[in-house]
């Protein structure tokens, strides 16, 4: 079993782990010849199934295992991975390999980074150190004034568990019926700001029991097939609503739907006119975590399954045109009234 790769895009990978780790601490990572998958299934809250083309984050990718398609399944803690990647922020290069240290499997991230050069060190210290008891120990400075590159090799070992194929066999992506409405979401930072504000207001005006977390009012999210999205929250004391209009309802690809496009629930909702809505109720705090995916800057299509679930497809910009698409899929259950 071998896995070794260079990280092509440290920044994207860091943002990806930041977004994922807000939803769960542990990810199931499946690496194979074709793509890289991250799956987060928290005990409660939103599931994420992310499938990335190898080229979008890695290059010089080598994988080898006895399993079909050279698949390696890992259980990977996200906070240490994120922390490790953050330390590669200024790196000139970074690579990852699967290895063993003291009998424990680790993903070893090796970062080559340039430390602060000594060039600007000369001024400012020990100008007149005559009464300095440490005098003799400090006099010996001779930093290079040239400030050449000072290279440091940083190795961050992230503990992992290598999973058997049998243990992950039973994990399946949720199956949801055809959505009633689909809409291209507006700017996520805008949506996040409004959602966070609404949740905060509702908590502040709630009946005091909100701090414990159980009785937080739910955000109501509604979409029609005529380019509108409504976000609202209501408590005993207030009722607020934000409406976006002029959004795009992407056309269905006839090849992707089981029956005729006209038979699709969304076509029916469209026919019912702009006053026909599909509704989901979601937890504001969980939604805030989901929206943190906005930092990756992808296009987001929200699919509404009325009173049942909200599915977000986040399409990331590809490294090159030809490659496979990178998509993050979020499954958010709707709360009943």
């Amino acid at each position: 079993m071998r896995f070794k790769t260079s990280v092509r895009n440290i920044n994207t990978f860091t943002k990806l782990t930041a977004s994922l780790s807000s939803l769960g601490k542990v990810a199931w990572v499946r690496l194979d010849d074709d793509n890289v998958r991250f799956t987060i299934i928290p005990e409660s809250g939103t599931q994420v199934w992310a499938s990335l083309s190898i080229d979008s984050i890695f290059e010089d990718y080598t994988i080898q295992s006895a399993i079909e398609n050279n698949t390696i399944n890992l259980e990977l803690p996200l906070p240490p991975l994120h922390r490790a990647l953050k330390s590669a922020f200024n790196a000139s290069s970074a690579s990852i390999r699967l290895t063993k240290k003291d009998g424990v499997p680790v993903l070893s991230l090796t970062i080559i980074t340039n430390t602060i050069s000594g060039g600007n060190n000369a001024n400012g210290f020990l100008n007149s150190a005559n009464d300095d008891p440490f005098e003799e120990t400090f006099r010996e400075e001779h930093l290079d004034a040239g400030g050449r590159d000072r290279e440091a090799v940083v190795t961050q070992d992230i503990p992992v568990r290598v999973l058997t194929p049998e243990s992950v066999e039973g994990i399946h992506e949720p199956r949801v019926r055809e959505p009633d409405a689909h809409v291209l979401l507006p700017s996520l930072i805008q949506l996040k700001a409004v959602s966070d504000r609404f949740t905060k207001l509702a908590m502040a005006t709630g009946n005091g029991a909100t701090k414990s977390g159980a009785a937080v009012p739910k955000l109501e999210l509604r979409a029609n097939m005529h380019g509108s999205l409504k976000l609202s929250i209501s408590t005993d004391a207030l009722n607020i609503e934000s409406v976006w209009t002029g959004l795009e309802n992407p056309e269905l690809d006839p090849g992707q739907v089981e029956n005729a496009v006209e038979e699709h629930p969304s076509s029916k909702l469209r026919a019912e006119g702009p006053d026909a809505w599909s509704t989901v109720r979601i937890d504001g705090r969980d939604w805030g975590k989901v929206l943190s995916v906005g930092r990756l800057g992808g296009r987001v299509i929200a699919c509404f399954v009325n009173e049942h679930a909200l599915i977000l497809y986040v399409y990331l910009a590809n490294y090159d045109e030809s490659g496979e698409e990178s998509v993050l899929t979020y499954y958010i259950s709707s709360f009943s009234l």
Partner: protein
Amino acid sequence: MPILSFSLNPESLGRLHDALVCLGKFSESVSIEAAHDKLILYALNSSKSAYACFTLIGNRFFTKYQYSPQRRPKEKFNCKIYNKALLSVFKGRSFDPEKETAVERCDVVVEDGEGKTKSRFIIKIICRHGVLKTYRLTFESIPSMHAVFSKESANNKWSTSSKTLREFIEYFGPGTEQLDIYAEGGRVSFTSYTEKVMSGNEILKQPLHTTIAIDIQEFADFSAEEKLHLVISVKDFKSIITHAGLTNTMVKAMYSRPSNPLQLSYSDEGLLSEFILMTIGDARGSSAPKAGRASSKIISKQPLEARSSSKRTASVAEMGPPSAVAPSLSRKVSKPSPPPPQPSIQSNALFFPEADDDRRWDPVDHEDEDDGEMLLWDAGVNHASSGQRLQRLELQSQSVNSNSGMNVQAARSNEYEEVPTQRLEPIEQVAPTQRLSEIRGIFDD
């Protein structure tokens, strides 16, 4: 007539605050020693494995510095103050002269009276627009006690820029306990790790194991034995480097062998910083044979104490001859070990100079918003590691002359007044004499 008075300009006040913050990471009280030409602030952690000391040079750090010993001219004044009380005086003060509430000057007067005058540490902060804030703190008289470091036997030395080390500590993730400094083949590595062994699912909770390897060429100066694992507490190292990294200076390390102390020192414009950290005996298969280590330990104890007076001149400059050299390692061996260390709290601040402020994407934490105002405080009990215990540092205390330092009024604890010198050595045995509530009361009077 005050025993000690000094004035600080806003810049020095800021630096004094930085030093106190650093000392606060080692102990909850700060010891102060005044001599005619300098003021020394120091702290020893509760497991006695780390000692931090800042020397403020009288005529360079202060705008005015006056020490008037009460009895003999060479006599020093020693006291101990609850660090949180001092920090709360300086905390949040704006040292920026542009601000409306900026501090213009800080005057400190220490009165140690007998009978008439109260013994108080009086801090006056003079702000703009004629605002004057006066704080009167109580203090406790203590014997002087400094950790001993033998420069003669410390044949391993290196020094490097504080900014480089500051950058290094950012790589260390939370949860690790030890830092291993190791040189081999022209490269030096800093490894932050934990000794806790986890199994099963727990393995994923193992903290990041971080190694930073750099070429010896990157050091300004490196003359140390190779293949020597020098292991210290990563938390102590972070506390020190966080302070050192505030200024652009040279951090110098000196040490002899594992299980013996390591000294880190640096200086900046009238402020000398010195730290003595106990290193852990090498459990990773050292180059030193076991027998050799054992014997070196024994050797290290006796000569250190025997030669204390000569060392005093080296490490604790110009202190008078001790009338008693109090604590020894052997006496404390039977004490129960301190509780296992807790993972230190990590700040991600400064980590990540981002153009587009990635943090705005983080989910909003709706629950704990009120905690931001708290002074962060380390209890200072968690310095020894679970697996290997750090030995204590060698200490050197100067007993207090029967009348001088032990001012009855200064000490809040009655019990403390009667304690003979020998019982003073382990600092943690003395009950805290000042509580925050008491100090607030004092502000009012």
